[in-house]
């Protein structure tokens, strides 16, 4: 790698266009959002204006965000995301493990099968789930033949969690696959040779050694779950609001942009917190990473 001073002309030609683009269409918009989060709607002749704002009036929006109603929704977003992440881990670990120990010729195909749904439009996948779970859907049809139902399976927390697991599963499988693939299998043999049972070997050897992949997967699934909007909107409806839905309402139906901006920043801080945790874990696991 060369020092940028050796070739400043090339350095700036390469660096300026993307940096300016990101500045104009990312950093400045976030700046607008940041200012908006500290603003209030303007009062014109004693009435709340629709489009006018008083800028930088204080932290009233943030205080409002800690109202029990919104705290409740935030807490719900966290636990729904945490549960969805845990379920993803539970199902993705055997999948990743199985792919690593599958025959070499099958590996690419199995990986493709895991990743492919991720490339299919999120909206289409959610729509497909609606068709499966709605009251006249396929699951209820099948239950009907056996004499059960029909059950209302949409518009509740279960539907949202199922949808999140369904949608974000590939994010969990890929980092797990990457670490399990790198795992030195002779450690497992050693553990089994020394009298460890399969279960002990898994808990004491495999899991600790693949911890970096587990942490990456958890973060990669948890972050998009926390900020999800479409899944709770279409599968949860009004009964399973998450923070993303509240933000959307402030910017669309409720037309309270300052409050929406404050909620967006709280969501971003939560995201950065999760990323910082991941960073700390990678620092700690440096010594034992295989």
């Amino acid at each position, binding site marked *: 790698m060369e020092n940028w001073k050796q070739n400043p002309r090339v350095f700036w030609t390469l660096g300026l266009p993307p940096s300016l*683009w990101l500045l104009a269409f990312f950093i400045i918009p976030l700046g607008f959002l940041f200012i908006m989060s500290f603003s209030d709607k303007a009062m014109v002749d004693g009435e709340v204006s629709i489009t006018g704002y008083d800028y930088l009036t204080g932290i009233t929006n943030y205080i409002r965000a800690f109202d029990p109603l919104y705290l409740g929704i935030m807490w719900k977003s966290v636990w729904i995301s945490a549960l969805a992440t845990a379920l993803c881990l539970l199902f993705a670990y055997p999948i990743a493990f199985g792919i690593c120990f599958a025959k070499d010729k099958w590996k690419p195909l199995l990986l493709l099968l895991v990743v492919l749904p991720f490339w299919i439009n999120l909206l289409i996948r959610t729509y497909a*789930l609606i068709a499966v779970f709605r009251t006249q859907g396929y699951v209820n049809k099948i239950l009907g033949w056996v004499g059960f139902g029909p059950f209302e399976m949409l518009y509740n927390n279960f539907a949202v969690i199922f949808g999140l697991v369904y949608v974000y599963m590939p994010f969990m499988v890929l980092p797990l696959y990457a670490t399990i693939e790198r795992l030195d299998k002779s450690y497992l043999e050693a553990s089994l040779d020394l009298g460890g049972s399969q279960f002990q070997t898994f808990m004491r050897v495999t899991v600790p050694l693949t911890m970096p992949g587990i942490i990456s997967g958890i973060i990669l699934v948890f972050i998009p779950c926390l900020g999800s909007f479409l899944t709770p909107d279409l599968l949860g409806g009004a009964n399973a609001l998450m923070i993303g839905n509240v933000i959307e309402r402030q910017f669309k139906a409720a037309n309270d942009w300052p409050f929406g901006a404050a909620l967006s920043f709280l969501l971003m801080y939560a995201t950065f917190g999760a990323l910082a945790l991941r960073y700390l874990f990678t620092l700690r696991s440096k010594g034992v990473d295989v």
Partner: protein
Amino acid sequence: MAAQLKPGQGPLDYGSRTWLKVLFAAIFFVLYAPIITLVAFSFNTDKRGVVWRGFTLDNYTKAWNNASLIEALTNSLVIALIATVFATVLGALTALLMWRFRFPFKGAYEGFMALPIVIPEICMGVALLLFFVNSGMMGLFVALPWPLNLGNIIFAHVTFCFPFVAVVVRSRLVGFNRQLEEASKDLGASEWQTFWSIIVPYMKPGLIAGALLAFTLSLDDFVITFFTSGPETVTFPVKVYSLVRRGVSPEINAASTVLIVITVIATVLAMKLQAPPKADKV
């Protein structure tokens, strides 16, 4: 004892365990059954789409004749094509910068470039909405004739696509043998000649894979488009969203199937190109 160790029975042959195979089958079934039924029922004659009544292509003709659906699909494809071009160029520039130079605060810059990847989509969507409205770009672009009225959405899509392209292209560049570049310069080639005839050909698979990634990301995006599109500009996901809110119809199945086919082809192509061919390991 040796008799116990026939192939597929060793303690580490997890791949041949029955319980793992069953679990695999179950998870893949859950993963694919909804999508397969969606595709299958796009050929169904039943209007309510619950029971299989017979094969037909009517839903496709109906979707094809639905002007607003076709308009949305065209918009999506146009946006994706233009955004892909810009995102690929910007992403390649970023990748080259990070690969070639040492500079102060490089770690911070790298983190900054990854921000659009990690930030919640909805936050980026509302930030861009605010920016477009306050800067007057929303009013400006909405008044322009097609396809210029898609400008806002294209700007937004380029912004979240190009950091992904940068990651893909950079991972390709890591394998580049820098001596080739030195040799080219020693032999009297200029910076530009070296770039164009040595580095670009090497980057090409990465560029194509990155471009296909940007294309699918743009085609798939709902949340950011939902916030940045004007009232008159509708993309395919936004259109499907408004239809889905009104209920399930086989027409949506047909249109979705078309989009699934497009994305699957693009993905499989991208994966083929991303896997380095065995011959060119330097």
